[in-house]
């Protein structure tokens, strides 16, 4: 028993990894080399045809670009806002503990709930935002229905939902910086802005590197906010790779094309992550 426990654990672990992760990933990639007209139809080997078709379609490049815009802008906003909120929550004031909890709440909401609540708030006739804007004499905005506003709106919802992740991790990092560093800098005459750029940011660089990586990966793969608000529309203005892959695989029942898009999006992500690791090496000694 004693001798076999660890190997037993590891065998189960290896099996679970194979079945849950390695298997499906390999299967997904292999699906992208086949063409099947339906789920029950016999798959036909088509080589790289699916990839060629995807790469030569305008929809793919549009979706890739939209994905970069969506993920890029959302990360920048989340990081800037998150750092700002964390700095605020690091100051001593009454009710700070409570506000730290409150600032975390959006992160807990299921995406569906957040999206539905925003949709209700901006409802065309009864939403609080619509009514208030009309009261103040502002022109109505069709948040998810116009090409110019849709991308802005999906980014806003995403930023609201996931900024607390940055706030909380950055705040936890702030609490590890020795107070003496700040005192020494103050004695040397450094103002708050210099203290931020010369002490806070360098001290938290490792945390920030990881936060940006994780949030970037997740935002690039995020499907539900866009699907539930605009469905990729209007006219593909917010369609990114996850939505495109889903639409091909489960709405047009072209599993091969959907798998090819998902595989390509994973490859794109790997390239970006590799460059990121090269540009910002992680300190592994921690």
């Amino acid at each position, binding site marked *: 028993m004693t001798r076999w426990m660890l190997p037993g654990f*590891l065998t189960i672990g290896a099996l679970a990894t194979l079945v849950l992760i390695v298997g499906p990933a390999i299967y*997904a990639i292999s699906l992208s080399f086949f063409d099947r007209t339906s*789920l029950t139809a016999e798959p036909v080997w088509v080589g790289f045809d699916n990839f060629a078709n995807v790469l030569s379609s305008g929809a793919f490049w549009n979706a890739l670009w939209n994905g970069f815009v969506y993920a890029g802008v959302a990360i920048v906003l989340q990081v800037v806002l998150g750092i700002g909120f964390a700095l605020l929550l690091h100051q001593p*004031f009454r009710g700070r503990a409570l506000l730290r909890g409150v600032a975390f709440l959006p992160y807990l909401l299921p995406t*569906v709930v957040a999206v539905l609540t925003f949709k*209700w708030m901006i409802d065309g006739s009864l939403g609080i935002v619509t009514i208030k804007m009309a009261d103040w004499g502002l022109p109505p905005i069709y948040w998810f229905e116009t090409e110019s506003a849709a991308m802005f709106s999906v980014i806003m919802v995403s930023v609201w939902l996931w900024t607390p992740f940055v706030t909380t*991790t950055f705040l936890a990092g702030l609490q590890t910086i020795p107070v003496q560093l700040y005192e020494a800098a103050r004695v040397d005459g450094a103002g708050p802005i210099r203290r931020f750029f010369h002490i806070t940011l360098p001290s938290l660089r490792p945390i920030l590197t990881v*936060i940006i990586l994780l949030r970037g990966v997740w935002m690039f793969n995020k499907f539900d906010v866009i699907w539930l608000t605009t469905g990729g529309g209007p006219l593909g203005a917010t369609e990114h790779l996850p939505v495109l*892959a889903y639409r091909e695989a489960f709405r047009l029942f072209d599993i091969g094309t959907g798998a090819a898009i998902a595989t390509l999006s994973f490859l794109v992500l790997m390239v970006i992550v590799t460059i990121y690791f090269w540009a910002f090496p992680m300190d592994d000694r921690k």
Partner: protein
Amino acid sequence: MSTSLHLKRAAGRGMLYLGALILAVYSIFPIYWMVASSFRSAREMLTNPTLLPSAITLDNYYSLLEQTDYLRQFANSTIVALSTVFLTMVLSIMIAYGVTRQRMRGKQFIISGMLYAYMFPPLLLAIPLYSMFSVIGLNDTLLSLVISHLTITMPLGVWFLWGFFKTMPFELEEAAMVDGCSRLGAFLRVVLPLSVPGLVTVAIFAFLLSWTDYVFALVMIGSDANKTVPLGLASMVGAFDLRWGDIMAGSTLIALPLFVAFIALSRYFVQGLTAGAIKG
């Protein structure tokens, strides 16, 4: 001199409280609006909204429970989330413990495999899983959803517990084994009790992921009987008769367990996020 310093300090305090107020309103208002709307009467929903509901009514909740499958969806969500948590715990404890305690080649493969699994687009897993499930006749079942959720929660759990077990000194178990414990006994009586904070964190995040999931449910579940709450709520919006009061009531009910868990266990949430961020 000293008055201007006082003024400056007072202005600083003022800015601080103003910032705190903005952050509070920004974070809480949509959530408040959801809860408040769920308690408004149908008539009040159609009029110019006031900040506070003029009268609190449970009508929306009654109509939600009577006219939709909400209870069933809630039960489905609960079954899926609890099963996911249980299997995540069992698998990730075994893998993480095995990897930290066993000398072997290639264990780095398991750990880095977990890290890459973090980066998989959920759809890259959903598409093959759906095909596999439909081949073996498991499609459109709660079990298929649990398995799908495990593809996300298990890597997370292994990654987190690996960092946790790694820091736990081997001497603890060795001492227990010298005192006559078997390895399993040492594991169950010494290692696990000391790991409770890490285990709670993993359980919370597995629950959060499974409970809030929409993507996998959308792909895997087709029949009304097997819908989870996020899927059920989303399909209410497409319905002909759009009832925002009911939808907000359903949203409040599904968010409530998460808020309660957060109030009771907030330090584990923070710990999980930061450890994930530092190590992941």
